[in-house]
């Protein structure tokens, strides 16, 4: 089966859990910015959690399915229509052959992940299907979708016995949106202090920040929400202004360039960087970082490494419980 891309959306890329183990070659991790939402979308349609999904940014694609399939859209709050009928996210939808799946604008947040039964297929590159936009490989020719692309779908849908004659069917149950996707502003992001100090010492945590327009999958660029003229506050700056040589960085690393505007690295982070590393956003909060769009406000809260591991374990346990609940539902009723 296949999916025809009628319209691509603002930035739609194929992503799985990313490309780990190739950083020594200068290859970034890539992968879904919010692996949790991507995993739930997969579970809802009967896929393995790590199957590739389409990551949708701000406005979604319009797709036509060649055969009946199940789909699910998880993440931010997007307008989703199947042949013109509005459907909610975070639930399983059975879509008949030839149907048009149109994902429109994003009402809140910034991104969502679309899973399809059987899973999107693409050649594996260095053990991942993820699109590496900076490297120009992986996913669909290393780029975002364009109109006319034909996406290959795996055959797991056949095994699930989706009958075309059933027409569209929206499940009456759903999964609650992840509590990690609190839509309130300013967003609260937990961060572990980094090895490099800044002046003032607690400047990152004391101030409120705004996401700037030049943010992308590589990183969120931040500026203070208050101007110096209004508060008299000096810009945040690295405590040690000496030139430094490049060292490894990672998704989550918060760099502070000399201009005082922190950069939170995301999944497409480069492998090395030369700016001071003043903090690290914890992994459990990456789903929330994925939902910030230019103009959104955020605050950082200091936490310990132990807190970070605890939050991560709690998230993994929640995902495991949801997987069990979905499996139980699927066993009750095939649809």
């Amino acid at each position, binding site marked *: 089966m296949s999916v025809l891309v009628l319209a691509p959306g603002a930035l739609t890329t194929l992503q799985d859990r990313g490309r*780990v*183990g*190739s*950083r*020594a*070659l*200068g*290859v*970034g991790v890539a992968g879904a910015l919010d692996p949790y939402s991507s995993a739930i979308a997969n579970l809802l349609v009967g896929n393995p959690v790590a199957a590739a999904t389409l990551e949708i940014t701000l406005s979604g694609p319009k797709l036509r399915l060649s055969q009946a399939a199940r789909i699910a859209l998880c993440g931010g709050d997007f307008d989703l229509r199947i042949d013109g009928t509005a459907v909610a996210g975070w639930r399983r939808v059975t879509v008949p052959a030839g149907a048009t799946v149109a994902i429109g604008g994003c009402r809140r947040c910034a991104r969502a992940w679309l899973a399809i039964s059987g899973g999107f297929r693409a050649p594996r*590159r*260095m053990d991942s299907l993820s699109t*590496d936009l*900076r*490297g*120009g*490989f*992986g996913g669909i020719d290393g780029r975002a979708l364009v109109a006319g692309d034909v996406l290959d779908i795996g055959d797991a849908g056949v095994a699930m016995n989706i009958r075309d004659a059933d027409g569209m069917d929206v499940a009456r149950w759903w999964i609650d949106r992840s509590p990690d996707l609190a839509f309130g502003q300013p967003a609260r992001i937990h961060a*572990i202090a*980094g*090895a490099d100090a800044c002046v003032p010492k607690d400047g990152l945590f004391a101030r409120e920040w705004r996401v700037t327009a*030049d*943010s*992308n999958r*590589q*990183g969120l*660029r931040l500026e203070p929400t208050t101007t110096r003229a209004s508060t008299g506050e000096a810009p945040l700056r690295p405590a040690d202004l000496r*030139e*430094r*040589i*490049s*060292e*490894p*960085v*990672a998704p*989550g*690393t918060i*760099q502070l*360039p000399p201009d005082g505007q922190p*950069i939170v*690295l995301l999944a497409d*982070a*480069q*492998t*090395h*960087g*030369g*700016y001071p*590393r003043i903090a*690290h956003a*914890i*992994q459990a909060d990456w789903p929330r970082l994925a939902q910030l769009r230019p103009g959104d406000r955020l605050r950082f809260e200091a936490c310990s*490494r*132990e807190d*970070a*591991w605890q939050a*991560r374990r709690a998230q*993994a346990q929640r995902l495991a419980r949801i997987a069990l609940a979905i499996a139980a539902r699927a066993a009750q009723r095939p649809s």
Partner: protein
Amino acid sequence: MTSGRRPPASAAAASPAPSQSPSARATPRVAPTIEALGEQALLLRFGDTIDPDSNARVQAFAHRIGAQRPNWLVDIVPAYASLAVFVDVAVTPARDPLQVARDWLQARLPDDARVPETSRLLEIPVHYGGSDGPDLDALAAHAGLSPDAVIARHAGREYTVAMLGFAPGFPYLLGLDPALAMPRLATPRREVAAGSVGIAGMQTGIYPRRGPGGWRIIGRTELSLFDPLRAAPSLLAAGDRVRFVAIDSAS
């Protein structure tokens, strides 16, 4: 967001010129410092300058731990003078997964290992100057040399791949003749051709892919530095030795 990272500082500002051979070791070795990089990685620092000795220690230690990687060790990332070790914190049941990694790494120090004898020597054919090397003349003027002398000095040396970074397969090479050092362009080019050989401060490197760039471009190679379809996607690996060979255009 190309300014999200900054290519490394020039050695001219940070350290003496790394022109001595790696065997010329004057200073006694100090054990590397180990610090956490977020919740999932440790950073071992062998030095804070761009110098062959620190980098040789990085390569030797990366080689040693890479040969015996435990299941929690998911990635080893060498840099000029440091090395990141990424940990799958879900694999180990320990309360402090990074402490497990730290203990394991400590047990493998001190780093008395030599650079592995397996280190390869690769030749990179380069067409210098012309449209392939738009900055050759400016670099020659900056160095007070003729363009031919620049080519002879650039191609007359053996370099070591200190690390791959900035982009997939982009090698940062140690061993540039200090006479050829020149700061980056004030304004980066919007487009640099794939295979372009550039100089930035005391560094020389090769752009694997077409894209923006601020290094001084003196030539270009037809070799493919990075191809995800190959069994070994990157032509070069950290620790490799490299020689440039000047060739005629269109040959």
